[in-house]
């Protein structure tokens, strides 16, 4: 941009000068590089200047830009360091456009955006950025796990527990205990009953006995688990990420699958899960409890589960494979120059649903700025149009193959403003129960190591992930 303006202002003389300068800058750049190269080796070795740690401090910042929690694992860093972040935050307009890694004169700031909160960590030395990002998300996950949600109000209400958690999760800036099972042994999650009891008795949230998990060979499971009802449930959830173009052809489609487990089994159960069609799974990632070699050789999941809820595995079926698209969309959105209005007509029908019903169908459209209002009729479900966010949401519900849902009508446009060039794309949400769209099926689940008979259950569900129809 600057460049183009620059050259347009130039006349030829300055072009020439620029040309000369260019050749000069080339050498300047070159020498700079040489210098830069040297400076790399010239700078102080890490053990000389930099204090050693991975994560130095953490600030939690709400969407208004207030710092409502700070934790330092080493010496205190003034919160004014966050000003650099606020500057970037302002520049980015959208919170999700804030660069996750920022460089300031003395520190590096690595941040994540979760649940309208920024988790901002201060780093002083080289550290893999993903290491920090992954850790911060793990912190957010832990809060979620403990308090049911990860929001400012919940964190402020449980400030002390949060602080204790942070203290346990990081030692001198290096992750120490990040397994929820271990943490829960040391710091009990709050619940209403206990907090009542605690206030009466002066009891605490800290575990009375010290944790054993860190000391066993299976750090994710605590010892001495006991349940009256032993049960193990697995949810296989698949999300379809797809881009469908105007004409209805699939540009790209992938499946993101995840198996969530809720295992409440006494003792030290050793589980084995096998699939009808394990070949589908060529790109997987596992919870650390899964024995990878067993998977490599036999394609079965063999593991001693953590206690409670956890993600057993995630898998990815890439766009190289054929992915079934459950619905099709017929749409036409037009804007007319003359009447400063537009027409919209959308119909949705089932495509490859494997005989199941499509539920919770919803279409979201982010309209161009010029669209002032929508005057539509839906044959099924309700629609809303938010004039400020320009979001048109059509909530359809169950898809009836006999009577296809349709939304049509006119859009009123701002006058005197040129027509939007781009038609907005449609984002589709849907859900299909009892179906993994990839065809994945669990064939059996066996338990070894314990004598009792557990209840077992597997549930399948398919959802739309980032399902987008271009118009």
């Amino acid at each position, binding site marked *: 941009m600057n460049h183009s303006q620059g050259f347009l202002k130039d*006349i030829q003389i300055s072009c020439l000068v620029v*040309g000369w300068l260019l050749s000069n800058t080339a050498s300047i750049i070159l020498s700079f590089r040489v210098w830069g190269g040297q400076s790399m080796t010239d700078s102080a070795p890490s053990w000389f200047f930099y204090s050693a740690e991975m994560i130095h401090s953490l600030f939690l910042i709400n969407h208004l830009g207030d710092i409502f929690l700070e934790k330092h694992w080493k010496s205190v860093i003034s919160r004014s360091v966050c000003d650099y972040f606020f500057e970037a935050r302002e520049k980015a307009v959208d919170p999700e456009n804030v660069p996750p890694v920022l460089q300031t004169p003395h520190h590096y700031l690595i941040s994540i955006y979760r649940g309208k909160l920024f988790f901002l960590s201060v780093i002083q030395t080289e550290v893999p950025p993903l290491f920090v990002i992954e850790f911060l998300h793990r912190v957010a996950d832990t809060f979620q796990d403990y308090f049911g949600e990860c929001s400012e109000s919940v964190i402020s209400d449980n400030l002390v527990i949060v602080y204790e958690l942070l203290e346990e999760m990081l030692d001198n800036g290096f992750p120490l205990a990040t397994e929820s099972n271990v943490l829960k042994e040391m710091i009990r999650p709050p619940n209403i009953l206990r907090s009542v009891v605690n206030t009466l008795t002066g009891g605490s949230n800290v575990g009375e006995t010290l944790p054993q998990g860190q000391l066993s060979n299976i750090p994710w499971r605590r010892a001495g688990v006991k349940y009256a009802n032993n049960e193990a449930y697995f949810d296989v959830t698949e999300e379809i990420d797809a881009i469908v173009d105007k004409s209805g052809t699939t540009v790209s489609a992938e499946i993101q699958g995840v198996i969530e487990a809720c295992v409440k089994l006494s003792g030290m159960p050793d589980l084995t899960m096998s699939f009808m069609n394990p070949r589908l799974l060529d*790109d997987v990632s596992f919870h650390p409890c899964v024995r990878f070699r067993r998977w490599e050789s036999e394609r079965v999941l063999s593991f001693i589960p953590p206690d409670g809820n956890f993600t057993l595995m995630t898998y990815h079926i890439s766009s190289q494979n054929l992915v079934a698209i459950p619905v099709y969309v017929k749409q036409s959105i037009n804007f007319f120059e003359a009447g400063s209005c537009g027409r919209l007509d959308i119909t949705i029908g089932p495509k490859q649903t494997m005989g199941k019903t499509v539920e919770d169908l919803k279409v979201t459209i982010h309209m161009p700025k010029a669209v002032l209002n929508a005057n539509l009729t839906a044959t099924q479900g309700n629609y809303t149009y938010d004039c400020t966010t320009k979001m048109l949401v059509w909530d359809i519900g169950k898809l009836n193959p006999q009577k296809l849902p349709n939304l049509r009508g006119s859009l009123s446009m701002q006058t005197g403003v040129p027509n939007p060039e781009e038609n907005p794309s449609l984002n589709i949400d849907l859900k299909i129960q009892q179906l993994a769209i990839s065809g994945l099926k669990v064939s059996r689940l066996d338990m070894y190591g314990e004598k009792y008979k557990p209840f077992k259950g597997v549930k399948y569900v398919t959802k739309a992930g980032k399902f987008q129809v271009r118009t």
Partner: protein
Amino acid sequence: MFSSHRHDDLKEMLDSNKDSLKLEAMKRIVAMIARGKNASDLFPAVVKNVACKNIEVKKLVYVYLVRYAEEQQDLALLSISTFQRGLKDPNQLIRASALRVLSSIRVTIIVPIMMLAIKEAASDMSPYVRKTAAHAIPKLYSLDPEQKDQLIEVIEKLLADKTTLVAGSVVMAFEEVCPERIDLIHKNYRKLCNLLIDVEEWGQVVIINMLTRYARTQFLNPNINESLLEEGGSGDKTFYGSDEDEDEDEEEKEKKAEVAAMAKRKPYVMDPDHRLLLRNTKPLLQSRNAAVVMAVAQLYFHLAPKAEVGVIAKALVRLLRSHSEVQYVVLQNVATMSIKRRGMFEPYLKSFYIRSTDPTQIKVLKLEVLTNLANETNISTILREFQTYIKSMDKDFVAATIQAIGRCATNISEVRDTCLNGLVQLLSNRDELVVAESVVVIKKLLQMQPEKHSDIIKHMAKLTDNIQVPMARASILWLIGEYCEHVPKIAPDVLRKMAKSFTNEEDIVKLQIINLAAKLYLTNSKQTKLLTQYVLNLAKYDQNYDIRDRARFIRQLIVPTEKSGALSKYAKKLFLALKPAPVLESPFKDRDHFQLGSLSHLLNAKAGGYQELPDWPEAAPDPSVRNVEVKESVPEWTKCSSREKRKEKKVEKPFYTDSEGESGPTESADSESDSATGSESSSGSEESGSGSESEESKEASESEEEEEEEEEEEKKKKKKDLKKPVQESESEQSSEEEERKHQRKSKPRKSESESESDEDEESESESSQSESEDSESEAEVKKKKKPAESKPPPKPVKKESKKEKKEMSLLDLDDFEPAPSPQVTPVNTFLSNSLVTDLEGLSLSDSVLSPATIAPSSTLKSYELLHRITGEGLSVEYCFSRQPFSPDANMVAVQMQFTNNASSDTKNLHIEDVKLQSGMRVKEFPEIELLPAGETATAVMGIDFCDSTQAANFQLCTHTRKFFVSIQPPVGELMRPVFLTENEFKKEQGQLMGMNEITEKLTLDVKCRNEHTIVQRVTTAANLSRVPCGSDKECRFAGRTVTSGSLVLVTVATKEEGAAQLTVNCEKMVIGTMLVKDILQALTQ
């Protein structure tokens, strides 16, 4: 007033007997801390509760303590005993937690306690406590870097730990304390590889990153053959760290060619250890932790044979489904990888397609990847995608897309025209940004292919009728002007139209019209003369002064008049110069010289503490260093199959097995043979060798040295690292002992090492190599024995000083300086430091001062403390012995020589009434009870001058008299030498620029024009050690001030005719200034 009382309620609660009240108070206090409010005034009230029985109260007190201990050190000390008690608790968790908190309290006074606690915990039964010990190491290190050596010992010990719990934490400590000590890894390498999969996730990341660096120093480039091919073919840089100077680059290329040629002869076989690493990390691509996946991905990218790198693509693409921050980092790395290894990601092209819901920064990165992946076969699909993107509402993204189209067009000639046409259409876009971006790109594309201009320019000329966006009009005019010779018919017509509409145009368009007119006037004045003048006249009366100015200026330049100056002759050259075509390059090009996945890579700038990824070695270091011996009882040197192994042992053994210098004999035998085997061990010989011996062996091996020079540089580095421990053990040996042993040992070694190499399970070539080496060393050892045997005990010092000169010249050849280590046990001789190391083995005694060893020296200056006359017969001289003062390392050793010239005995010589500047300290010499008449006695005292040249005043007392005396140190004596490598020196110097650097020009004294004299004079003036240096024009010296340990770096750069430049870099500016003066004087007198 208010503030001091505001927490009274809390204090009260803390003082109460009820745990519930205490807990409530602590919770409120911790909440204050969490909100960033100051709670420091509660410290005394809180610290009392450190021993509270309630676990939660205790925990919160710990939280508080760690936060405020630094600010309230005195009070914090009160709590220490609680933790010390905790360290001895039978419960491992209490021990661990005590250590954790203790090590988190950043109070310098407790450093020794922490050190002790860490050492103890490192050998704790419980792996959990050992893990905590590993965590505590970097904490202590950042509190007091002086503890480094001791901490390295602990790290070494913990590295040998076999539990997964400890592995990650200790490698983290290793990376933060001593990442340069790669030699510590050898023995643990295989174990780490095998444990890796069971280590917790965070530890995996750290270990993988460290092993990547390790592998780069120990294995050969698996792509060596391919990289040669590529280099010949496309001239692509295939080596990662290729940002050296250009001439160096060429040299390197030659080298590479040689190596590659060698590789051709010998087909590349991957080291099994290299394979082990690749095999054991691969499963971790399945980790749920993005950081682990990334770590493995970068390991494969940097270490795997090309054919195998592909496996990481799938895992990386999977990460793209993760949180947007993860996507951001992964995409950055994919962008870099996709430049070098496009094929790897091509199958996943569609995974990089952009959704309208992606954040802009993700969109732009995906675009980058798509552009990198574009080739002849997929370009049509990609362009179709791009077409959708151009319509996006996100204008920054559209601009980026246009740039991307431009890059595709430059890279793939087949689609250049399509792209151009597409872009030309975009010129009619309503959005200025789109237009401007398109124009920039079109302009770039046109400049690339001048011969095809005319069509498009014609087309664009037509567009002037329709396009109203001023920016676009202006750009088109610029293009027509620039290439008016390609469209000779159209250009004047366009000018005609423009002249007509001139008054209605926007300013930027007007400027370009003038521009076009001027260019046409110069090329086609016949047709356009009048038009141009018309335009210039219009412009002359324009409202905008820029335009008026421009018009006036151009008229002067192009229209020849009598007054027009010399410039008008060159008008054509000025206006129609050939402008270079801009290069459209990916911003991610060449970023892979940073280790992927690192912060530095992401920022494309070196972050603090970044460990450079080393280049592949050209010849693989001995792989047997990683062999782990089972039978530890066998004397290690008999098992050695090669020198590498022996060398390795030297480091490992002293720490592990011998406690009281027990392994001394084997040590010396080892290093002897080292020095014999050849050049690479020259450093080893230096430390161990007794003076002349090492000289001889070096001379003998010089020819070898030259051949092996390349290999050596690496090894030398390692060697240097190894030195300290060796020295420590060796310095304890007296020379006689050593000689004897060396005679004894050299014989059996011959036979045994030979037979050993047969036994060894190494590949044939290896063992034969080591055999030949051994036989070589045999000969050498024989040669060496003679001088060693015939060598007289300590030579008179005069000769020695001569030897020093010789020594120096040898050093120059070898680019090496003996390490004057501060740990050398005091040898109380008047020898300059470099000699000390040589003579270490020779001195007869190392503890008690014996007058016999003290002889007046020419190298050390003596100063008079007390004159014979004022002292009534007692005269005292002193000199700075330059020996570390053993009772206190921060003191300067001052050696005093008392001579009793009187006829009666002097008794009870001692010091009294010391008067010092604040901060200075004196360690008096032990009282000399009797000094008979005519006798001489010597004593050493230590003075901590606090890095200043202030005098230390005191009274020297005899049994009868007191004399007021003072000792004032020359600035050069306030430092002790440190050993630095050339690189370290440069690094340190880079940190001490600006105010900390003093430079003086000087003319060298006539007698002082050669290097040796310079070295001698500088080292005489200041207690510094020489830093090896590649150039013979520069002499470098390094030292640290005795008290504060600030670095002192001295460079003397000589030029022709005795001109020279002296540079002193020192944090302490006063010291620097004074030192400059002193050295100047020494060099010019």
